[in-house]
């Protein structure tokens, strides 16, 4: 039997998800992550999954991996010893960044230190002008001296980042070639290849991140691939990227900067796929874990891209799905501020000591403690790996730290924690929708992560979202997303010119060139799979503005009049006004190419065995009132089942709360569809 496997490395668990080609079966396996050598858990998880399903390596058609190796190397600053070669006069660009401090009022806040120290940032006599003209040729003699110094410093990687290389990469290419020639064992990357966009700090920074992380990623993927091949794997190994697409492991290391946000991307891809099956192309994904809340918006089937992405204070300009993260999750701590308001987060109890109810020494009241006290979580929750939750400890923490000082009942304080944390999450959702001219009412909410379905219904209610769709395995949605992704590449080409001066035919040639080059490159690495999707977008602004609006090109050859019209309309929608009398300027063009590597099949749900029987009942508090509430096991809730709240549906990795009067139904894919609360 042929099947596909997704393996997602998370902070606590490494999830392995197996899906057959027919898509009827989805089997989930979890092993503990091995932080120092994440590949050990990947291999172990895979072996375990194969054993459980009585399968062989030969049955595997495709393996997709979501990895945090690049992310962690960056976050923990455990990358290679990297150097920078840059234009004379500009070696401190990486240090100064954009000259801002991270927090306006905090005298102690500091920028991130550059990944490459000043003593390894070398200045080279050369200069390309703003129009791509060569003002000063590369000083080859000086370059040789620099390379001597690089050799002496024994660096593992070199970032070549020169001014205006997005206009003319000739100098970067020349420098890189000579460095590679003389230092064949050293990783060399160039800024124009990784991010051919105007703005030196972001481009240089992206290049430095890649240089810093690439050797680590190369070692990791090399080791993983070798072990997998030894075990007998013959299928191709793909790695998830931050743009929601995958690349072959063989090329992932070289462009590792594209895999920095690989983890959360899986969840967004799953959200898009789920929505597609529901004929709804407007989706908000809400991933609620222990410490953070990640929200993404997919409008008209397109997940937005982050504009100014930054990881831990380091700028990264690689196509990555736009994800808004706030510090709100199960571990977020409730506290009283000096003005007597009940606040929640951003401080989190994390996994250790964890919420008070974990009994690991935490005594701060958290969101998880509140959900437990309200009866929404069971004391014998399977969520934390079969851990018994201590409701008395939860009550005690809430009583002592919140209820008593505020003069509230424990239950009211618990409800307060949940309402406040929900309000924080709603604010994050509004930022991505309302602030951008989108109406949340047009969207379906997909809550996942361990705590997503606990809060989903309330978030939808507060935001005015009509429907909520709880995936069949909310805790492993990111891993499931791996099995729904395609080979995908997004290319951005800076091209600043007045729209009225553009020649549509010239533009077509330009775009077609980028596209065919991308397609053929992707096809070589994927054994000639089919082109499944091609998208073109132009980023346009009013002349004089510095913020552009993406305008998709819907027709084949770009119709400039249509594009201008679409731009004014989008501008009007997003910002409330348009100025059709003003000249427009093209800033850049985006090309998206997708190649199918796997069928997009949503696993089917279990068929219903008639009316589900509750496994228990308990008292759950809604709106300050206790309700006797039936508790269901998710495995008993098959296709077509209908439940009217109050109800709680429990499963190994998550708990779904259905509010009093709220209707829930299970669709063909085993997903729970919650109607709006009445």
């Amino acid at each position: 039997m042929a099947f596909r496997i997704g393996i997602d490395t998370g902070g606590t668990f490494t999830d392995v998800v197996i899906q057959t080609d027919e898509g009827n079966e989805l089997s989930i396996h979890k092993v503990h992550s091995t932080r120092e050598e994440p590949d050990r858990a990947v291999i172990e998880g895979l072996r375990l999954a194969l054993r459980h399903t009585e399968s062989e390596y030969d049955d595997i058609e495709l393996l997709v991996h979501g990895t945090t190796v690049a992310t962690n190397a960056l976050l923990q600053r455990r990358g290679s010893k990297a150097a920078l070669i840059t234009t004379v006069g500009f070696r401190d660009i990486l240090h100064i960044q954009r000259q801002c401090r991270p927090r306006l009022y905090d005298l102690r806040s500091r920028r991130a230190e550059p990944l490459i120290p000043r003593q390894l940032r070398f200045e080279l006599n050369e200069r390309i002008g703003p129009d791509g003209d060569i003002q000063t040729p590369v000083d080859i003699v000086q370059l040789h001296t620099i390379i001597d110094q690089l050799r002496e410093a024994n660096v593992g990687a070199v970032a070549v980042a020169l001014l205006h290389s997005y206009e003319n990469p000739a100098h970067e290419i020349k420098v890189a070639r000579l460095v590679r020639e003389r230092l064949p064992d050293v990783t060399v990357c160039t800024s124009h290849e990784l991010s051919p966009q105007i703005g030196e700090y972001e481009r240089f920074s992206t290049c430095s991140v890649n240089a810093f992380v690439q050797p680590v990623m190369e070692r990791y993927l090399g080791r993983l691939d070798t072990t997998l091949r030894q075990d007998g794997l013959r299928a191709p190994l793909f790695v998830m990227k931050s743009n929601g697409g995958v690349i072959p492991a063989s090329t992932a290391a070289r462009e590792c900067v594209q895999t920095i946000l690989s983890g959360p991307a899986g969840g967004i891809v799953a959200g898009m796929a789920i929505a597609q099956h529901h004929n709804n192309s407007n989706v908000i994904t809400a991933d609620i874990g222990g410490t953070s809340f990640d929200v993404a918006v997919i409008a008209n089937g397109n997940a937005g891209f982050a504009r100014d992405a930054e990881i831990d204070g380091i700028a990264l300009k690689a196509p990555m799905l736009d994800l808004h993260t706030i510090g709100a999750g199960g571990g977020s701590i409730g506290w009283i501020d000096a003005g007597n308001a009940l606040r929640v987060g951003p401080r989190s109890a994390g996994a250790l000591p964890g919420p008070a109810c974990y009994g690991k020494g935490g005594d701060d009241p958290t969101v998880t403690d509140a959900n437990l006290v309200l009866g929404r979580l069971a004391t014998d929750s399977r969520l934390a790996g079969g851990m018994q939750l201590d409701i008395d400890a939860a009550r005690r923490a809430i009583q002592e730290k919140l209820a008593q000082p505020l003069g509230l009942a424990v239950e009211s304080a618990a409800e307060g924690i949940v309402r406040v944390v929900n309000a924080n999450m709603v604010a994050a959702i509004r930022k991505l929708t309302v602030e951008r001219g989108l109406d949340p009412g047009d969207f379906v909410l997909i809550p996942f992560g361990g705590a997503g379905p606990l809060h989903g219904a309330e978030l939808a209610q507060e935001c005015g979202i009509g429907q909520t769709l709880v995936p069949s395995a909310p805790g492993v949605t990111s891993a499931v997303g791996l099995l729904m992704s395609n080979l995908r590449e997004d290319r951005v080409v800076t091209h600043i010119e007045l729209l009225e001066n553009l020649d549509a035919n010239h533009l077509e040639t330009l775009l077609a060139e980028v596209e065919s080059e991308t397609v053929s490159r992707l096809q070589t690495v994927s054994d000639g799979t089919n082109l499944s999707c091609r998208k073109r977008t132009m980023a346009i602004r009013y002349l004089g503005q510095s913020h552009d609006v993406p305008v998709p090109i819907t027709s084949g050859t770009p119709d400039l009049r249509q594009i201008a019209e679409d731009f004014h309309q989008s501008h009007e929608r997003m910002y409330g006004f348009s100025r059709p009398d003003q000249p427009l300027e093209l800033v850049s063009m985006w090309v998206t190419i997708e190649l199918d590597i796997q069928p997009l099949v949503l696993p089917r749900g279990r068929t219903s065995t008639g009316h589900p029987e509750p496994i228990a009942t308990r008292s759950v508090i809604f709106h300050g009132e206790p309700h006797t509430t039936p508790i269901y096991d998710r495995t008993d809730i098959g296709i077509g089942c209908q439940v009217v709240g109050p109800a709680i549906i429990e499963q190994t990795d998550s708990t779904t709360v259905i509010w009093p009067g709220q209707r829930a139904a299970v669709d063909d894919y085993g997903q729970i569809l919650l109607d709006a609360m009445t």
Partner: protein
Amino acid sequence: MMEKPDPVLLEIMRNRWRGMAEEICAVMVRTSYSPNIKTRFDCSAAIALPDGQILAQAEIGTPLHLGIMPAVIRSVLRRFPIDAMQPGDAVVTNLPYPEGPGHLPDVSLVSPVFYEGQPVALAATTSHHVDVGGYSPGSMPFDVTEIYQEGLQIPPVRLIRAGEIQEELIELIEQNARTRIELRGDLMAQIAASRTAETRVVEMFDAADTKQVLDYMGHILDHAERCMRSGIESLPDGEYTFEDYLDDDGSNDEPIRIAVRVTISGSEFTADFSDSGDQVSGPMNCRISACRACTYYVVKAVVDPDLPTCAGAYRPLTVIAREGSVLNAHFPSAIGNANILTDQRVVDVLLGALLKAVPERVCAACSGEMNLINVGGIDPEGKYFNYVETYAGGQGAHHDLDGSDGIHTHLTNTRNTPVEVIEKTYPLHVTAYGLIPNSEGPGRMRGGCGVVRELVCLADRTAVTIGADRRRFLPWGVKTDHHARGQHCYLIRSDGTRELLPTKFFTYLKKGDRLRIETPGGGGWDDPALRDRDQVRYDVAEGLISRSRAREIYKDK
């Protein structure tokens, strides 16, 4: 008598109003035309009660708008009492006298929001426009002595009447600006923001009980007041004084004295600047609203950076400045550059005073100015251009922390314009942008290094204004007599001659002229001989401190 607020609803309401202010500000930033607002975020947005008390304010690029916004709203309400306003009105002003924005480029728009026929809130935005006319491009000239020379003065007037935009008024304003497209664009962005505010406020009232929403607007102010009072109580009672100087006002060599007496008594905080020098003839005079902004900034930074920004938080603060002094000048004194220079010195003296109360919470002097540069003229294609930026400098050290190199401090936090964007957009060529070795204030903890930027003019008759300070009175250290290096600015002609320019000037440059601007470093903390040897040697290896300086000042053998 209002009921005691529910701590949960209080927090939820607080978040909503704050989110609303942030959304309004985001709309303004996104719809603006000029890079000033787009990338430098020199703007802010607020929601106020109908009586003018600010309920929530969003500020991204500068805390200066904090104290200024209440003054703007007060001056608007003085001319148009809330009962005289009608739905769809919006009042524009940029006039700092008798109170208002800090200088003329800060054009502000205030509009009432009505619900069921009653005024329930005010929405206000301020954004720093590229140009509002006057003697030099950018409307922040030196060589002037009266506000008349600084640009167009707009007293509070209705830009929109009952939903009707007063097109003729916009044309009048536009006619006075060198960059009219940007001016109109940025004004439209402010209008878009105030419309968003109206929609959101009405939604808020639609979704809840009107009385409850109104009650909680009051509760939010009281909450902020409690937070602020509890923070001030954590500071030791006493009187703390400090003085410092600005180099000059750009017209003569006289230093300008800035002095403060801070009195902390229980939960009350008073800053009295009356001992400062008299008003000056150059454009370095300040309005008291700006002194308030500086005080709010410092107290917030020292007490708790997360304190809410609303009128309630300001209740325990009293700010006094003698009339006729440089910090409370009479009409029609020129004031254009107070925002970038005088105000930073006001912050310096406040922190200097608090150093005596809570040394562990305060840092040594930062670069103490903003080094504003404004370059304007006609590019080789015949189009008008204007480039404006404020340059980073060194940050002062804490008792346990080095200051950052090349960073915006205190009242400014705006992004730089990328070298590639400068060269692509303006007839300018950038030959250097980096840190200045040996410019740090030495100490056990060292201050940050200053920044150098070199620009070559590619067009003739390019007008340049520079507003800087800290060449004579250098950024001070704490527990050490060493200072950081001061500001320098050189003009290098194409024949190679080199001239040191004053800190403040306006001049025309020729094609091929090169400007080299070097910003001040930040002060250090404690004796540099006590600095960790590894750290001294690391800075030497990094090329930020020379071997000889390490030997002589840091006593490293």
